[in-house]
Structures are given as structure tokens and as C-alpha cells.
């Protein structure tokens, strides 16, 4: 999930999600960067309305599951 965290960090800070920016963050965190994955995530996010997704994340009724013990 590192790439998602980095992207949402940028999103929360109202910064553009670019390959460069994601790589900078991961590097600053001391995490090895997988170029392919960065590319894939950044490209995929371009097609998504993040605010919309986050709205659903908080609003959506989730399946009640018996809590894992």
C-alpha cells in the first residue's frame, strides 16, 4: 500500500500526484522505489476521481462482519 499512502498524502496536501512526487516521498521514507509500480499507480489514479472514491469509502455501508477474533 505504500504507493497509495504516498498518493493520498499528496492528495491530502493538495499536491499533484506525479511519479516524481511519489518517488520523492518513498525515498524520503527510506523505502525502495519500484519504478513500474509508481508508473502504474500514478497512471491509474489519473483515471479516478479520488475525492469521489474517498467519499464512498466513508459513506458506504460496509458488510457487517463478525469481528475476527
Amino acid at each position, binding site marked *: 500500500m505504500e504507493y497509495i499512502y504516498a498518493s493520498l498524502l499528496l492528495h491530502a496536501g493538495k499536491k499533484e500526484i506525479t511519479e516524481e512526487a511519489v518517488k520523492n516521498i518513498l525515498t524520503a521514507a527510506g523505502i525502495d522505489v519500484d519504478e513500474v509500480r509508481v508508473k502504474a499507480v500514478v497512471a491509474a489514479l489519473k483515471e479516478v476521481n479520488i475525492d469521489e472514491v474517498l467519499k464512498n*469509502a466513508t459513506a458506504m455501508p460496509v458488510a457487517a462482519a463478525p469481528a475476527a477474533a
Partner: protein
Amino acid sequence: MSIVEERKIPRWKLDEVSELEEKLKNSSTIMIADIQGFPTDKLHEIRKKLRGIAEIKVTKNTLFTIAAKRAGIDLSKIEGYITGSNAFIFSNDNPFVISIFLSKFKLKRFPVPGDKADEEVVIPAGDTGMTAGPILSTFGKLKVQTKVQDGKVHVVKDTLIAKPGDPIPAEAAPILQKLGIMPVYVKLRLKAAYHQGLLIPVSELEINLDTYRSMINEAFRNSLFLGVEIAYPVPEVLKLTLSKAHMRALALAGEAGFLTPDTASAVLSRAVSKAYAVLSAISGKVDLGVEVPKQPEQ
């Protein structure tokens, strides 16, 4: 301060100022706590618990102010808090760590008249060890059922006499004392922290860990939803994406009534659930001899 005046200052005061100055210089965090009415024995308890993390010292505001000035503390930031009776906490830890630490242990005390209960006050069943006598009428007032056995007061069953937030009946005090029940919390009232030139007021100093838990939860949920939406290519997330795609496919098949052997279950179920919904909407008026399935308890 003139030299003449300084000569008049007792030796212990000078020593104390030097000691304070030393502590101030060697501590990155200084916290001020209000100890007005704070029980001295509880302060000892705190001091013991803080050992190795922080030092707590009760001193006069004037002495502290002199020492702070000497230690190069920006007094303008803290002088507003140096009124009343204070304890000063010295530490090299993050001030929030100290604040959380202090909030974690509950110091309890016996109630005094006018106190509200911080936790349920229950008189437990059994032998109170109290000799039967006038105390029986106190139990009676508290509506605690008792019986006398071998001259001692026995409580018949566990009895709640105050819920959290309720005032504790004044007449209960001697009984609680005798039974060792301390339903009132004592908390060191932090006023502010001074940390590396920053002043942190108590409003920011108090940390609600549940808020942080729910923020993490939210951040993670957001990440997961986003990951699922973009088919983030790690197996754990893709599993959810596959599920989601599959559920969408089933829902679509069900709604469109596109029936193939592998969608049959979804399609028929959807149709049946709609039929039952209609049936239940008119079930008060029409008896078709069909039971509407009950929703199982969740």
C-alpha cells in the same frame, strides 16, 4: 535584584534556584501543572511512576521564574501559567509522550462531599466487617439491603449507589472508606508545556488516542478503497478488486435479468427478493398464504 537583597535570601532558596536552573537547562520539555488541592500522597505516586521519564518538582513560582530567567527560557511565553500552586515537570521526552503517560494511569481517591463518581460505585455483597449499629440506617438510606450476621453488617447483593457522573451521596463516604472503594479520579491538571521554544497549551497537549485510532482507520480505509478502485497490483488488494468486479457483474446480471447457468442464482434471487419485497409491502392487506422470510438478526 540588588546584591544587598540577594544576601538576605536564605541559602536553601539559592540552592533551589540553582537546582531548578540546572534542570531547566538540561530538559527539552518543561511542563506546568496545577496542584491546587492536589493530594500530596498522589503527587508522590506520580513522581514514582514518572521515574526515568521525567522529574516532577513542586516549588515557588518566584524561584522558578528566577531560575527560568537564568536558564534563558523565553518567559513571555510561559509567565501567564506561573500563577497559583504549581508542580513543574522536567523531561527530555516529547511533551505529548509525558501527557499521554500521565493520562494513562488512574489515580483514585475516596470521595469528599460534593464529589461526582468517575466510575460506578457498587457496594459489593458480603461481609462489610462493620459492626451492626447506627451504620445500618446509613445503609438503609442508600437503599442497600443488609442483614446482620454474627453482629456484623452483611450486604445482601451487589448494589449500585452511583453511576459515573452521579453525585456520590455524602453519607456513603464512611462506608466507602471502610470498604476501600475509591470512585473518584485524581488527575494532575496540566496547564502547558514549553518545548524547544514552543509553547503547547493544554488544549493541544491532551491526546485522545481513539481519535488517532479512527484517523488511522479512516486513512487505511481510504487507501484500501482507492487501491481497490485502481486495481492496485498487490494480491491482497486485487482480491478485493476481483470481488468487487464480480459482485458488480452479478448485480448487473441480476438487475438485467440476464440468466445463464452461472448467473442463475443471482438473477433468480434478485427476482425473488423483489417479489418478497412487494409481498411484504402488501402483507398487511392480503394473505397469500406465503411467509415473508424474516430478516435474520445481525
